[in-house]
């Protein structure tokens, strides 16, 4: 630790700290534009100038280390001043330079009200400019459907360039020309090819890069802000939902070091228009082959009639990828009341089950734990599209010091290099048996990490593949005291919560696949749109969008999306998080647990709760770990891995294929979004171009 005096306050900080960090530790605020905690240091905006005692000129505090400071003449700790006259004058000078070419278009700028430059100009700016020449004019750039540019406003902090290069891992953005003529652009204005590109617009300290889909839609001060959780993938990124009136206007990331740091995917951010398009806003009943609008009573009556006339064994329930724990619990309780054992939330056909212990289906290493891994084997996963922020962590780990990383499955671009060692279970079997050279690397590693993705564990032979991976984990000592190197990567937000809840077939129950193939006569479909249901089954679809599930339905019960209800979601690590209501469901649509509660009454098996609180009380009584928000309940990972390893079975020879065919169109909300459709088309073009 090194001592340093900041404005007369002595603090003790690690010597590798920069002056900026030391000043923050001492409680002094330093203005900055180019510096960002999660990006490399550029030191080009000069806004963070401070005075170092003994240095002849002000220094850029973001790029000056505490250990680079000279002590005083008698060995006193080095001293810096952040509020002195010199500092203020220096910053005013920098600000004046920055404003020389910055247009005065704050009234028409989307960044107005949330602009670093605006805020800091209030603190360090002067009221007039002494500059009488013409301002620089820079042509705007095309960077794809998500980022709108207004390059006159650019102050050349290069945060966007550093973000795309370092975090997103696509070297698309760059700064061409030089000096006053410097311009930020992609190569010949190609659209950015990253699933994280919108974060670059968040990072922009001025209005040069703004979000195109939201352009001119709102002012930041008009919005009410609701902290929530993203459900577009199983990562459960922390988000903030900003709404105006009944309408969600935008979604922003929240800082959560354990999960998403401060990034979210474009899908999490820009499905906002999908929340209002294609919505089911009233119940529908299929009469003579056509869906007709109905009242809740009519719809319930139709369902009650069908259920009454059907044998219990021929009734089933499938839950989809966006269901919260509350409605899963309500549906499970209802089915239990009806005496139905055919319930399943695994529409991908996997056989993960709470029977093997919680450790058998969680991302046990945790997302933050990836940073401690020193050898990574990815089996049947494409983390970049299945759980983008897990991929960001692996890339972050790779940037610290490249560990050996190998992939079995599809050969895809993960933004970091890896050893491609095979396509299917045979390679995994080779590695598990120690016949492959990568086994030695895993064995030698202190914290080896095996990530098994949906490409591997979905489908019939999935359990055998999982078992094989567990055997490998066991044999290399990946699971031990202090390190859980066996991680299952999910891609559906509801999956872990459903497994925790035991939303899997009961004794003699049918799986989702079997139910969809016509083994039941009445099927409750709670928002499962990724599964094709055979004709002949009477389908009750409870969901939010007029998507695949609704087209197949015989009765439609309109529900609420994740922004319109308070719901618990468990992310792939097993972290229990709660999404909050930011807006109301449209029309007659209701919160899903309430629909099930009302339906239960009609079916004659009234659910024992009348409010969300009562539901939760009951839920927490049965499954106490759901009450521990934002934490991961400890589970016996070793036992889970042992149980999996003991299953054995024939993993087959089929190569692993990711179930996510199109990153931008994985769920009903995304499929309804025009922005996502545009992104998807663009990504397809980019893929074709790359394939050429």
């Amino acid at each position, binding site marked *: 630790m090194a001592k340093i005096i900041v404005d007369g306050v002595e603090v003790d900080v690690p010597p590798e700290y920069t002056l900026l960090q030391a000043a923050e530790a001492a409680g002094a605020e330093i203005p900055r534009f180019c510096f960002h905690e999660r990006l490399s240091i550029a030191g080009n905006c000069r806004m963070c100038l401070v005075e170092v005692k003994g240095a002849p000129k002000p220094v850029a505090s973001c790029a000056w280390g505490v250990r680079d400071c000279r002590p005083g003449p008698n060995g006193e700790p080095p001293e810096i001043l952040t509020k002195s006259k010199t500092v203020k004058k220096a910053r005013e000078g920098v600000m004046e330079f920055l404003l020389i070419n910055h247009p005065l278009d704050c009234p028409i700028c989307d960044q107005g009200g949330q602009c670093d430059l605006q805020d800091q100009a209030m603190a360090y700016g002067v009221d007039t400019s002494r500059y009488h020449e013409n301002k620089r004019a820079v042509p705007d750039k095309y960077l794809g459907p998500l980022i709108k540019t207004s390059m006159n406003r650019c102050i050349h902090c290069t945060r966007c360039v550093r973000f795309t290069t370092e975090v997103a891992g696509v070297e*698309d*953005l*760059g700064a061409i*020309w*030089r000096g006053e*003529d410097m311009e930020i*652009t992609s190569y*010949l204005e190609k659209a950015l090819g990253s699933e994280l590109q919108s974060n670059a617009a968040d990072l922009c300290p001025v209005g040069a890069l703004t979000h195109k889909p939201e352009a001119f839609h709102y002012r930041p001060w008009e919005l009410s802000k609701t902290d929530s959780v993203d459900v577009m993938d199983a990562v459960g990124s922390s988000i903030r939902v900003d709404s105006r009136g009944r309408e969600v206007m935008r979604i922003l990331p929240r800082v959560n070091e354990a999960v998403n740091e401060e990034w979210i995917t474009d899908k999490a951010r820009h499905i906002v228009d999908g929340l209002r398009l294609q919505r089911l806003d009233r119940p529908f009943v299929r009469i003579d082959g056509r869906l007709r609008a109905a009242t809740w009573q009519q719809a319930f009556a139709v369902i009650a009639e069908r259920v009454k006339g059907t044998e219990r064994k021929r009734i089933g329930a499938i839950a989809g990828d966006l269901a919260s724990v509350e409605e899963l619990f309500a549906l499970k309780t209802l089915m239990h009341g009806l005496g139905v054992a055919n319930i399943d939330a695994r529409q991908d056909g996997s056989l993960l089950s709470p029977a093997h212990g919680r450790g058998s289906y969680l991302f046990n290493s945790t997302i933050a734990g990836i940073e401690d891994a020193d050898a990574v084997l990815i089996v049947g996963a494409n983390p970049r599209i299945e759980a983008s922020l897990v991929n960001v962590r692996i890339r972050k780990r790779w940037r610290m010091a490249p560990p050996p990383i190998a992939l079995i499955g599809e050969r895809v671009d993960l933004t970091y290099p890896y050893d491609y060692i095979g396509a299917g279970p045979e390679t995994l079997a080779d590695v598990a048996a120690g016949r492959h050279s990568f086994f030695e690397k895993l064995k030698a590693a202190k914290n080896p990490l095996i990530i098994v993705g949906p490409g591997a564990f979905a489908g019939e032979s999935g359990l055998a593949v999982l078992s094989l991976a567990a055997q490998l984990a066991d044999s290399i000592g990946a699971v031990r005291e202090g390190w859980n190197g066996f991680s299952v990567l999910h891609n559906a937000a509801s999956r872990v919560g459903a497994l925790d809840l035991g939303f899997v077939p009961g004794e003699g129950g049918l799986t989702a696949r079997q139910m969809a193939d016509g083994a039941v006569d009445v099927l409750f479909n709670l928002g499962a749109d990724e599964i094709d249901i055979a004709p002949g089954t009477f389908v009750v679809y409870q969901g939010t969008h007029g998507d695949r599930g609704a087209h197949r339905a015989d009765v439609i019960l309109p529900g609420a999306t994740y922004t319109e209800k308070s719901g618990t979601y468990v992310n792939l690590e097993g972290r229990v998080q709660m999404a909050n209501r930011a807006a109301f469901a449209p029309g007659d649509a209701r919160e899903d647990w309430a629909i099930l509660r009302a339906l239960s009454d009609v079916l004659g098996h009234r659910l024992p709760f009348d409010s969300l609180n009562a539901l939760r009380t009951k839920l927490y009584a049965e499954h106490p770990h759901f009450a521990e928000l934002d934490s991961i309940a400890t589970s016996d990972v070793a036992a889970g891995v042992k149980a999996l390893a003991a299953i054995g079975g024939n993993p087959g020879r089929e190569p692993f294929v990711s179930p996510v065919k199109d990153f931008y169109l994985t769920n009903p909300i995304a499929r309804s979004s025009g922005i996502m459709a545009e992104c998807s088309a663009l990504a397809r073009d980019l893929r074709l171009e790359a394939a050429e």
Partner: protein
Amino acid sequence: MAVRRLAPEEIQPKSFAFSPENEVFAQEQIAKYPPGRQASAVIPLLWRAQEQTGGWLPRKAIEAVAVRLDMPDIRVLEVATFYTMFNLDPVGKYFIQFCGTTPCALRGAGDIKKVLERRVGEQSHVSADGNFSWLEVECLGACCNAPMVQINHDYYEDLTPENFEKLLDDLAAGRPVKAGPQSSRRSSEPADAVKTLTDPSLYDGSMVGAWRKRFEEEAVKAVDTGEAAAATATAAANPKPGKPDAGRAIDTEKADTPAKRVKEGEKPVTNSERKEAADTSKTTVAEQKPKGDVPAAQSGKSYVATPSKPEAGRAAAEAPTTPIAGTPPSETTTRRDGSESKPDVVPDPTKKSS
């Protein structure tokens, strides 16, 4: 630097590949750097690509270099656009970089520019016959031979409109031309007569060792007077300070000021000093100059350290501060510490440093 763009698509060649010899060159360049650092070779490769395409970098060449060095296209574009030595538009067979910076401009670069505008046309445009294009650049560092231009790899200096026109004619006609000064002089030797360093003693060997000899003489003198021996004897007992404060403006108690004298109960100004100050022969103020000989001061500001109004109470200098022209520095009686060339500086006789 005007805003530049890549050349329009219609004049971009459809493909680019390194010629065999440039490919060999590329391999040599890449081999200079450790594996994985091949991107360091980007500038030499771009340069060769530019030479191969006749002086400019088409888009395909930038992409070819990116592929060759396993770099993203944008990273190569960043380099190619940063350096003005990479031309992104076609240039003439003879690409003229015309220096328009101050020394050249003072020596008639404006006329050269007019020739270029008349003969070649607008800046950054290739002439109709494809022979010439020109660009105004900043100083190329040949100011002693101003005005000058760089044509392809060579400098052409000492230009006049006439010899520049002839140069362009010769180039256009394919006649051999002489690089370097276009006047009769060789490299940057004096243009007409030799005016400096003309003292023959500089060249006859008589000055060799003169500087050293002076020190030797002084050393001998010191030995003769016993000064050196005395210094050695007292060195241990009375060491010289490592950092003498000589030359620095430091207030010391030794300063003899009227105020200090008053404090110590003495007269602020002694009679002898008063008499000395009144001595007109020693002040510039009272110095009688023959009228007509010296032109009157041009401005109100005088460059001698003399108060313009001595009666205002400021101390007058003890000695004339304007040296008589031609007096060698060693012989002058006035201060030579630099203050004599600054306006309105009054040497303070009480400062120890003076």
